[in-house]
């Protein structure tokens, strides 16, 4: 649905600052119906990247395709039309103070030349959809941040887009509003069959709503994929960002062996414990780690310290491996602090 091919965006040098390569050769593919995330530190080019998708920013080179249309080949007036099929939600809502909530939702319809009666009807439906049917005549100034973002989402959906772009849509909201806005985004995604590209610097947001994500650093994609796959990879900067690698608790006992285990729905820790305790007769102690819900599934990374008769440990781990469990032994002298690959 969205395809970026080797896209670069260079901002020319200004009087004091030199030229800035904001996006440096990014290729990205978002399937229809997917909820995709882009994460990265501040200044990594996330906002620029999302603005390239609807050509608010023209790429310096590379191509942008949305819904089969190569936007970068289109003249300006055709790009404007194509933008109607791409809704956008912003960090600071960007509602017009001169209009009511309903008036704001009608704005894109007005631009598309939809008649007054039809506009009213659609605005009412959309405000109902986002749970603000009662506040249709309220001014933005009378709404809370979360409510404003709901209106902004209704507005972005007004022209029945196939794609929704969100640039830090929850970054200006408190936790409760964030949760409800994310919930709404997931709901409209499935009810309307949208493809969503969401930019954020908050990992919790990605974990809550995204099916896939890419990690951007200095304008480049350094990692990415479906979360279910990324999280079960041995070494992945994105996985490390989502679920920080466990650190051994300094107070835990010494000796024995340290094991790093990745927990998923298919390979829960019970399987590992069964093998270690039940079959190998070892004592197991949790030295660190956590288990969370990510993309609707249960994922975790645990650090286990096993003690006892370790002779059959290697064989046991091989068996677990063969059973699809991601588990490996932390080299004893390699430092316990963090598993390899955690500090990339």
């Amino acid at each position: 649905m969205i395809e970026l091919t080797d896209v670069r965006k260079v901002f020319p040098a200004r009087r004091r600052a030199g030229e800035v390569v904001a996006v440096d050769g990014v290729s990205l593919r978002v399937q229809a119906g997917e909820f995709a995330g882009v994460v990265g530190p501040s200044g990594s080019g996330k906002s620029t990247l999302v603005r390239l998708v609807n050509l608010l920013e023209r790429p310096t080179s590379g191509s942008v395709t949305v819904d089969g249309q190569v936007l970068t080949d289109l003249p300006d007036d055709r790009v404007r039309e194509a933008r109607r099929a791409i809704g956008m939600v912003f960090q600071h809502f960007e509602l017009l103070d001169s209009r009511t909530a309903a008036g704001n939702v009608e704005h894109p319809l007005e631009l598309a030349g939809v008649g007054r009666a039809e506009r009213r009807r659609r605005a009412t439906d959309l405000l109902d959809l986002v749970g603000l049917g009662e506040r249709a005549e309220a001014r933005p100034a009378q709404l809370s941040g979360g409510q404003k973002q709901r209106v902004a989402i209704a507005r972005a959906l007004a022209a029945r887009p196939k794609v929704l772009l969100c640039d830090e849509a929850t970054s200006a909201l408190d936790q409760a509003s964030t949760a409800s806005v994310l919930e709404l985004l997931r709901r409209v995604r499935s009810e309307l069959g949208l493809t969503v590209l969401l930019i954020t610097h908050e990992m919790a947001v990605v974990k809550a709503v995204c099916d896939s994500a890419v990690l951007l650093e200095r304008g480049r994609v350094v990692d990415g994929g479906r979360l279910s796959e990324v999280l079960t990879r041995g070494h992945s900067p994105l996985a490390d960002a989502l679920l920080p690698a466990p650190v051994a608790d300094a107070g835990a006992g010494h000796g024995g062996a340290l094991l790093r285990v990745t927990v998923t729905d298919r390979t829960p820790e019970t399987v590992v414990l069964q093998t270690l305790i039940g079959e190998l007769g070892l004592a197991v102690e949790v030295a660190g780690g956590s288990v969370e819900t990510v993309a609707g599934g249960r994922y975790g990374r645990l650090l286990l310290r096993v003690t006892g008769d370790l002779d059959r440990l290697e064989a046991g781990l091989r068996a677990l491996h063969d059973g699809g469990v991601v588990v490996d032994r932390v080299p004893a002298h390699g430092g316990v602090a963090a598993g390899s690959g955690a500090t990339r």
Partner: protein
Amino acid sequence: MSDWGRVYPQLFEATGETLYMVGVAALLTVLLGVPLGVLLTVTAPGGLAPRPLLNRALGLVVNLGRALPFIILLVLVAPVTRGIVGTTIGSTAAIVPLTLGAIPFLARLVETSLREVASGKVEAALSMGARRRDVVRTVLLPEARPSLVAGVTVTVVALISYSAMAGAVGGGGLGDFAIRFGYQQFRTDITLLTVVLLLVIVQLLQWAGDRWARRLAHV
């Protein structure tokens, strides 16, 4: 003080002339100054339709108009006034220099107001597929309306003080009245009365303008 009966009708007439000059000039100023202000805003670097050369040329003309003392402008545009109105004397003739003097003034105020509109709102409209003129019509002007109204109020008040000057060189109105009946006949009471009257008009305008702007602000 027995001549007040003779003075009042004249005062009444002079007030009417001032309101006429200022009213028509204000209307023309808004009609021409707002588009000029929009042009200044959108052609600026980083604007909706950057045209650096045009922007600099417009900026120069506008600054020239504002730098020129009104009295000088009055004399300079006399040929233009004669061309348009047929004469350079009278209230109607005074409208031409008044308007030409106020347009650059308002245009800058409009430019400032439009620039204050958050760029994110413009982006949001562009992301919905708005054309540039849609952005001006549905975002910039409506969002800036409270501040535009304030700008127009300031301009109208300035027009009243300009009109007193225009009056002194044959435009009629309250300025002319104050000079002929008050200053030249050493009637301080008449001068004072005229000043009070001007003050009342200005106060009323400012009050109405503020109220209107506040009603539009919604925040």
